[in-house]
């Protein structure tokens, strides 16, 4: 299948006090439509930097990024982002937050009733229809994250970019949101690039795990292809030897080959 995202010898440098700081070098990756890719690596290696490049929030200093064979020069509605800290606008209700995105993408073609239906459908997908008229400060952290995901999905993006979407949550909430996300992905068939620190999460959700070397000048170290059938059930997988093997491979990379020396 033709890749939907192509990253070709991309490097990223930042201006630093002493010359330039090389964050990323020589990144090459092709992502197929419908694929779920996890980016994993030690803190500070450049995962967010890479995700921001795909989102178009920053421009690469070397190489090119392509989406649908067109160079990525800025953000676009076909690439929705779920931010690490949900980033809901606190002065709008949950439905208004989602509406802001929906209006932008479909406002030209569709009437008010249809737009509202989209908002409600998106919030129903993450089981948040009870919070339509609540403000973000009135709902829990996990709920906010769900609304953030609903906002991204409501745009019907071709690619969903998620930066540690469940990073700030407790283990139980995290597990239920992972299952929810798996369900949503099965329904929508979206392409996903997702940054995570959590090895289990990477194996459970993704088709490929892209493991990055430590920075500075980080690049892709190894890629594990997760060949587990979907839908995936976390309880069944817990006893599956293949699951354990994938997990072990990622741990091996992170904690033997790329062990981070704590300063």
């Amino acid at each position, binding site marked *: 299948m033709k890749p939907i995202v192509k990253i070709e010898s991309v490097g990223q440098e930042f201006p630093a006090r002493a010359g330039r700081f090389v964050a990323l070098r020589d990144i090459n990756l092709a992502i197929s439509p419908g694929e779920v890719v996890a980016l994993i690596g030690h803190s500070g290696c450049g995962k967010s930097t890479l995700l921001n490049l795909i989102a178009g929030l920053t421009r690469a200093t070397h190489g090119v990024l392509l989406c649908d064979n067109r160079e990525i020069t800025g953000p676009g509605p076909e690439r929705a982002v779920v931010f690490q800290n949900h*980033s809901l606008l606190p002065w709008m209700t949950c439905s208004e937050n989602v509406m802001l995105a929906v209006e932008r993408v479909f406002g030209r073609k569709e009437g008010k009733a249809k737009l509202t239906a989209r908002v409600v459908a998106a919030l129903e997908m993450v089981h948040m229809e009870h919070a339509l008229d609540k403000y973000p*400060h009135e709902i829990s952290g996990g709920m906010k994250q769900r609304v953030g995901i609903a906002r991204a999905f409501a745009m019907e993006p071709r690619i969903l970019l998620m930066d540690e979407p469940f990073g*700030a949550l407790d283990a139980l909430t995290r597990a239920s949101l992972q299952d929810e996300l798996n369900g949503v992905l099965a329904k929508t068939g979206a392409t996903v690039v997702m940054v995570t620190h959590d090895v289990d999460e990477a194996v459970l959700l993704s088709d490929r795990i892209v493991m990055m070397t430590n920075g500075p000048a980080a690049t892709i170290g190894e890629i594990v292809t997760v060949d587990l059938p979907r839908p995936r059930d976390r309880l069944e997988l817990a006893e599956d030897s293949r699951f354990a093997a994938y997990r072990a491979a990622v741990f091996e990379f992170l904690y033997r080959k790329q062990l981070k020396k704590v300063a």
Partner: protein
Amino acid sequence: MSAVIAFKNVGSMQVAEVDAMAILPIQTTVSPAPTFMEIAPFSAQEVSPALGRGPGRGERLVHGARELAKTVIPPLLGIALLLGIWALVAVKNNSIPGPMQTWDAAAKLFADPFYRNGPNDQGIGWNVLSSLQRVGIGFGFAALVGIPAGFMLGRFNFMNRMFEPVISLLRPVSPLAWLPIGLLVFKRADPAATWTIFICSIWPMILNTAQGVQRVPQDYLNVARVLGLSEDKVITRILFPAVLPYMLTGIRLSIGTAWLVIVAAEMLTGGVGIGFWVWDEWNSLKVEHIIIAIFVIGMVGFALEQMLLLLAKRFTYESR
């Protein structure tokens, strides 16, 4: 003039903070008397004593009474101290009327605050109202100019660097120094006084608005970029609500300064107004009236401040 403001509770930390609050024992925090320039839009948060299960009812009553005493007694003591010192000074110095004497004069004065005997002899009510009117008009124009200017300065770095030296140069100038220019241009005293109010109100408005725009969290701007919002949507849906608390701080500082300045300006220009009234009473040596005016000016200023604090609270999105 930079009121230091922090966006609190933005992001997922909020939940943890709210939970922590729920565990705290009952307590009513009294927000300290707002001082000039110091209050940030979010600082006036009282801890609500809402708690489900707590100590028993009797215990709670005792606790409540103690809290009430804690909030009521110190301010009363402060006022008593002020009256005491005043009375003492009045006893030592015959030209200064004491509290009782002033009270009697005030009773007479406020029996008919809205009389009119020609342009130069009007009730104290009219004087206060016309001062407020000048403040309102001068401030209104300042807001009309200052808020958009603040947005421009905050949004465009070039503008910021262009106007920074100008503002730094003009801001420390007492607005009264601009009064002669006002007289020259407007030819009349009344608009000249309004003009000084305009000058003194505009700086806090520009600077606070600009600072608010600069401090809009990058996250929100990233949301705008990812959604691809148009510039007018960015302004109305993201920048304006995010900057509103800062703007209200600017407005509060402006009105506070304006109320300080109007008294001095009116002393110089004459006409009807509380500042002029003070001067007039001085000329006829009615010292008790001057003391009354001081209290009236203080109370009106306090009321303005409280009104704007309430307004700020209303528009602080977390407390809605």
